[in-house]
Structure formats: C-alpha cells, structure tokens
C-alpha cells in the first residue's frame, strides 16, 4: 500500500475515533441540551464513519453499495452542517434580541443569494470527466461547500459588524466547520475539475488533506468542548454609569 494511501486511511480511522470520543464528551457534558443539532451531527458522523469504514473493508460489500452509502452520508452531513450554522446564528441572536428580526432577515437573504450564486456557477461550469454521476457528485460537493463557507463568512462578518461577542463553544463549532468547509471546498473543486476515474496520486493527496481537516476539526471541537466557557475580558466601568448611559440611549431610541 502506498504511503499516502496508508496515511489517509490512518487519518480516516483517527477521525472516526475522535468523533466518537467527541460524542461521548458532548453527551457527558449535556451539550445536546444547548446545541442539539450539533450533538446529533457528531453522533451521526460517528455512526456513518464506522459504517463506511466497515463497508470499505468488508469483501461482501460491492462498489455501488458503498457509493450509495457515501451519497447518503454526503447529503445528510451537508444538510446537518447547514442546520448547525443556523443553530449557532440563533444562539448569537438569542443573546441580542435587538438584532433578532434584522439578523434573521439578513441570514435568509444571504442564503438565497448564495444559492443563486451556486446555481449560476453550476450552470456555467463545463462538464468534466466521463462519468456523469461522478460529475454530479463532485459538483454537489463543491456547491454545498461554497454555500457553507459563505454562510460562515457571513456569520463572522455579521458579528464583527455589530461587535457581538461569541460564547466560546459557538465560536469553536463555527471555527471547526469553517476549517473543514474551506479545505473541503479546495479538494472538491480540484476533484470536480480533474475527475479521476480510478484512485491515483492526486486522489490520495486530496484524501490526506480531507481526512487531515476532518481530524483537525474534531480536535478543535474537542478542545472547545473540554474548555470552560468564559466571557471576553474588557475593563468594567463604574456600575452607576450603566443606568445613566441607558437612560440617555432610551431617550434617543423611544423619542
């Protein structure tokens, strides 16, 4: 077995194992009560990861059966990642009720704009490769990653614009997703372009990068899950000033 193949297979095992550990830690810490979609996602990724590993090594499983399982994992995983981004956004908005309406509206507008963009890109991209099914899958992976990365960028830009602070868990989840999404976007774009018909050096390299990102993402989430949440430290003004400032602001807002 070539070194690169051995490496990505090792990273694949490691990634699945880390997601399993992540699920256990998340459940033990009651994370499912605060971030239920994220908790479901990591559990699902673990189950699917184990199933795909088994199918890859079991001699009785045929190629097309593995392919169907891979597509199911891809579609459900992508849908769950979008749901996680929305869950994080809702968490941020819940802490800032003044932004609830405008924030939700903006999120929807950005999602529609990104969907429009990927539809146009998909229409414009020339057909590559000889297998139409593989072409479709590659295109689907690329478009899903573009929308995901776009939404995460919006999330960071939106909170930056309003100087909103993140709870460290929400930030960790978004950071992990962002790293995974950007790396996955690069590799899926390369694959969509080159369309290999059989495993080769290029597929091994992209697999190593993808599985590496999968492991890094799990490690980031694990680190944030194990860390205690703390608000950012900024100097505190004398407490009586807060009431005065707020009165002035209210005079302005309710005039």
């Amino acid at each position: 077995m070539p070194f690169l193949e051995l490496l990505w297979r090792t990273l694949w095992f490691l990634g699945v194992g880390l997601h399993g550990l992540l699920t256990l830690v998340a459940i033990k810490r009651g994370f499912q009560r605060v971030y239920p979609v994220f908790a479901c996602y990591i559990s699902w990724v673990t189950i699917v990861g184990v199933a795909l590993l088994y199918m890859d090594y079991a001699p009785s499983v045929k190629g097309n059966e593995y392919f169907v399982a891979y597509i199911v994992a891809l579609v459900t995983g992508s849908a769950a990642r979008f749901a996680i981004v929305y869950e994080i956004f809702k968490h941020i908005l819940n802490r800032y009720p003044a932004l609830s309406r405008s924030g939700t509206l903006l999120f929807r507008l950005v999602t529609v704009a990104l969907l429009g963009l990927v539809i146009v890109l998909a229409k414009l991209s020339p057909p590559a490769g000889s297998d139409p099914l593989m072409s479709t899958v590659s295109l689907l992976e690329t478009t899903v990653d573009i929308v995901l990365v776009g939404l995460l960028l919006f999330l960071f830009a939106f909170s930056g614009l309003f100087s909103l602070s993140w709870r460290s868990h929400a930030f960790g989840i978004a950071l992990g997703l962002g790293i995974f999404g950007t790396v996955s976007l690069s590799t899926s774009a390369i694959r969509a372009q080159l369309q290999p018909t059989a495993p080769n050096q290029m597929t091994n390299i992209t697999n190593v990068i993808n599985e590496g990102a999968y492991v890094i993402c799990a490690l980031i989430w694990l680190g944030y899950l194990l860390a205690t949440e703390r608000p950012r430290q900024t100097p505190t003004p004398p407490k009586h000033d807060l009431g005065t400032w707020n009165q002035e602001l209210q005079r302005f807002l309710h005039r």
Partner: protein
Amino acid sequence: MTTAIVLVVLSAIVLILLIRVAADQYLSPKASDDPAEKIRFVDIEAFRNLIDPAEADYLRNQLPAHEFRKIHRERLRAAVEYVRYAAQNAALLLKIAETARYSSEPATAQAAEKLLDNAIRLRLYAFEMIPRLYVAMLVPRHGLPTMRVADRYEQMTRQIILLGVKFPVSGNL
C-alpha cells in the same frame, strides 16, 4: 481549471482569515485596548449644521449650482464621518456592557443588558443612515427624507458626549 484555481485561492484566503479571527478571539486585551480610551467626541452642533435642510437650502440659494453641489457633497461626507464615529462609540459601549452583563449584581447585569440592547439599535440606525447620506451626496434633493432622522441622531450624539464626560476622551474630531 480556472474555476478550481479561483476556488482554491479563495478558500485559502478564508482559511487564513478564520485563523486570524480565532487568534484575535483569545489574545488578552492590552492596556491600550481599554474601550473607554477610544471613545471619540462628536460635535453635535457641527453635525446638526451639516444635516440641516434649512442650511442646505440657504447654500443652494446663495451659491452657483456647481459650487453648491461640491460643498453639499463635502458637508455630507463630513456628516458620514460623524455617523461613523458615533457607530464606533456604540461598538465600544457594546464591549463594556458585554462584560458588565455577567456581573454578580442583578441590578448591574440588568442595566448592562438594556444598554447592550440599545447600543445595538444605535448601531443599526447608524448603518441605515450612512447609505442614505451617500445617496443624498449623489442626489441633493434626495437628502430631505434622510434629514428626518436627524433629531434621533442628535440624541445619539448627546449620549456619546455623555460617555465622553464619564470616560477620558481621546481622538477628538
């Protein structure tokens, strides 16, 4: 191949941005990062003058058309700067209130929550006003509806001045 290269470059840029954001999130604030020291003073009288429709009408009547358009643009550009400073001050307020909302004293925490909410609204007003001012720069007649929010904005700048009194003020406009 061009699409793939563009996507790879874009994802690399986003990845670098994410790593920088993550690093910033956990860098401990320096003494110079004290929000109170960054609050800017906004001259309310000057701002009122800049967005006063009567003042604009007076200038329109006194000056040749091309001269008026030039001066009108400059005045509104200055108004945009004032709004930007006020929005920056609101962002600083947010940071201060964010810390205070975790206070063990319920009264302080409650006051901070209210302040946080109002500071966000204030920033929303500012973001709404800036594009309107730019439109007014391009279409001088379009400026009038924008000026209707001037009274509200005046209150906001007063509030910022109050902050300037409470905290050491630097970087005056």
